[in-house]
């Protein structure tokens, strides 16, 4: 029981990271119907950038992450701008284009930061919290809190601000949105930038939990993506639940199957998709067929 709870809590912290990655995927998908296969690599660039500003430039952890968010936000704008000619024309080509960006970003990261990678020390050095015999890393609690705050901020942005509402309108009907004077291209660009910013937040927070190297993007990306699909692609609450679920599955699989944990996660995920392709909460798609 003790071990189970301990594993569960470890899984939740990792799951919060996956949830943030999934949130970025979902935001871009619901706005423009595109799956950004480079998202994982953007997370990785965010993790490296944050670690550089934290470890080398010696900025405070939070500010280092904020810098990383700005850097990847710009990166998102660039990706969106380059692929914009394909918007609404050929999803498969756009998808392959984002894979191309992912390959480029990974190569760039190796050129800039080297192939070996780095460990990031935790910004919080207090002793683990002890609740009824359960040892909980303080940093895990911080990660969960930041993820929750980011989600609430995103929901508030989408529902309460004019810009957010405009993005929702584009998601529902780009032509009608254009007709009422919303700039669809700009809305997509903002979605991409926010998605990439969330990626940097996820990457920066993942730094102290995981080893940061160029292949981090691949594994975080695919698990975040699995989380997004599991919750129902494009669905904000689904991304959160899906992320936490993948984190917990991952954490239990790592305990029970050790090296085979990835295999187990992907097989379980494939079976779930076969059973329920639209995820737990149903897909929020942009139907532009």
């Amino acid at each position: 029981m003790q071990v189970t709870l301990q594993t569960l809590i470890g899984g939740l912290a990792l799951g919060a990271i996956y949830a943030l990655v999934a949130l970025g995927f979902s935001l871009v998908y619901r706005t423009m119907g595109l799956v950004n296969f480079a998202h994982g690599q953007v997370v990785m660039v965010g993790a490296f950038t944050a670690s550089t500003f934290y470890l080398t430039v010696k900025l405070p952890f939070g500010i280092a992450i904020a810098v990383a968010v700005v850097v990847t936000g710009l990166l998102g704008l660039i990706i969106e701008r380059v692929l914009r000619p394909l918007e609404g024309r050929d999803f498969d080509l756009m998808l392959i284009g984002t894979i191309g960006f992912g390959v480029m970003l990974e190569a760039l990261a190796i050129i800039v930061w080297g192939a070996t990678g780095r460990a990031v020390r935790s910004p919080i050095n207090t002793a683990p919290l002890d609740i009824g015999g359960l040892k909980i890393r303080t940093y895990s609690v911080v990660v969960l809190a930041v993820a929750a705050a980011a989600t609430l901020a995103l929901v508030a942005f989408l529902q309460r601000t004019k810009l957010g509402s405009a993005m929702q309108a584009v998601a529902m009907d780009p032509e009608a949105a254009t007709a009422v004077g919303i700039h669809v291209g700009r809305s997509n660009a903002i979605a991409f930038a926010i998605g990439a910013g969330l990626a940097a937040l996820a990457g920066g927070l993942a730094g102290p939990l995981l080893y940061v190297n160029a292949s981090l993007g691949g594994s975080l990306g695919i698990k975040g993506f699995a989380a997004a699909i599991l919750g129902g692609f494009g669905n904000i609450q689904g991304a959160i639940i899906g992320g936490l679920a993948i984190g917990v599955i991952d954490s239990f699989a790592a305990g029970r199957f050790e090296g085979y944990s990835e295999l187990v996660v992907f097989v379980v995920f494939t079976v779930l998709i076969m059973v329920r392709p639209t995820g737990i909460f149903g897909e929020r798609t942009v139907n532009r067929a």
Partner: protein
Amino acid sequence: MSRSARLRIAGAAAVVALLYGLPYAVDPYQIHVVDVTILFALLAVGLGLAMGIAGQINLAQIAFFGIGAYTVAILTTQHGWGFWAAGVAAVVASLLFGLVVGFPALRVQSHYLGIVTLGLALAFTSWVTNAKMTFGAEGIPGIPVPPFLFDLSGGYLYYYLEIVVFALGLGFALFVVHTRLGRRMKAMRDDSIAASAVGVNVPVLRLLAFGIASVYGGVAGVLYAGLIRYVAPDSFTPATMFLLLAMVIIGGRQSILGCVVGAVVLSLIREWLIDFSTYAQLGYGAVVVLAVVFAPTGLAGIPRRIAALRRGRPAERATLRPVDLGGRLARDDRRRPPALEVRGISKHFRGLKALQDVTLTAGAARIKGIVGPNGSGKTTLLNVISGLYTPTSGSFALDGEDVTSSTATALSQRGVARTFQNLRLFTELTVRQNVLVALDRSSMWASAAYVVRPQAVVRAERRLRARADEILVEFGIAEYADERPAALPYGIQRRVELARAVAADPALLLLDEPAAGLNGQEVGQLREIVRGICDSGVTVVLVEHNMGLVMSLCDEVTVLSGGRVIADGTPAEVVADPEVIEAYLGDVSQLADLVPDTVAIAEAERADAVRGDQAEELL
């Protein structure tokens, strides 16, 4: 012998001579590079078939390759199997894994399929790096030299084995692409709904696409094991998968030869930049991005793009010829037209009740009109009858036989054909190929002939082509046979879709607003066509807003409003029904427009026809 045929033979002879002589011109290291390049080309051909031709995103090709190589390694080094016996088992193992990977394609497509296939490929990598049987990251050394007529331990003679296998693989792929199986795959890629409506068995075809891709992967894996005689997880990572993907995209995924060119070019560039592999990766990532934005058809598509620029759009020289359905009417081997009975059909989309308890019948070899305001459920009803939607309740029958639970494909094979309101033509196929897809009524089992009796496929192909050309002439669109539909004016595209529906040799033809967007002259021609089709013994259901056409053409008319039947009877009865006037027209003063004034219609069409002729002369 014609000049082009002579040139082609000379070209082929030159290629053979070049490939034969290649080993004499390169050093041992270079021949090794060539050997690896050929394997990548073989993998790219398989990936091109699945992704470019069948439209199935497949990021597991590298795992098929790995399964092939690892199976050989395990069976030869640990179980004492001979190399070729292990090779056969390896291809079978790859095929089985390919079908497992392809299975999700029955439920999900596009990005979902991308992630599922990538996930399963990663699961494979995870297995080989962890299992005892595969010796983890260390890999399996000591795979024996494949025994053969000549010594295969060196790269030079191995080259000849590879090039022969590759030529066979390439030849088979080209054979598939240019005959009915490939055509069906392309149709499925362009529009899977329209494909199933013309009788293509989409689920089986998707599995088959993955099956074929995995066989190519497995064969390449066996050859890899024999060439390197050592396998390790590093060779089968996602990075290699993306390189393979780049080969296919840069070469041109919709062209098998393009995939080969892409594989050769990228393999050589990778070799050339082997000391700068990170920069090479950056470079090919960038080229993939540039390719999808500026040259989506890859290197292979460049000649066609140049040709299209020089030729100009056919739309500027298009006119629609009249139809001549004489050939069809004379045929006496037709099926008996069925009577359609729809009994109490309801279709709900969550809260929305699109159809509520709709009951109607269409008599054999009669034309049934279905009219109603927008959103009254007409298209939903056609989608139910053609098997695209499963009704929430109720049933429908053809000649008394309940076919409610039949799929679109099964209904098509029973003789139900349809057109779509918003035109669903196969955009990357020519007009002739669009017709050919529907004309081909062979079952998926007949695809076995590709392996067992290829000559039968060629003969059937010739027969189908001749028949397709007849249909194109009958429908007056023969001159556009080699054009892509998107390049043609709207009226001609409509005609093509109608020809495609008729090519399926229907007993029941469902037309969804066939007159939408047509001018007066074209509507007149449409009337003749539909009348001719019905007279040749086909039951027709016509959904249409053009009341003049409905009133003058239909034997009976059903009026839908808000998903319910509000009137049913002859055109004259329906028009007089007060409820129809209320729901459909709202204003009695417009009623006069509905009663067909045949003289006026004929005059208007004649005037249009004269104008059309004059326009043609001016051109």
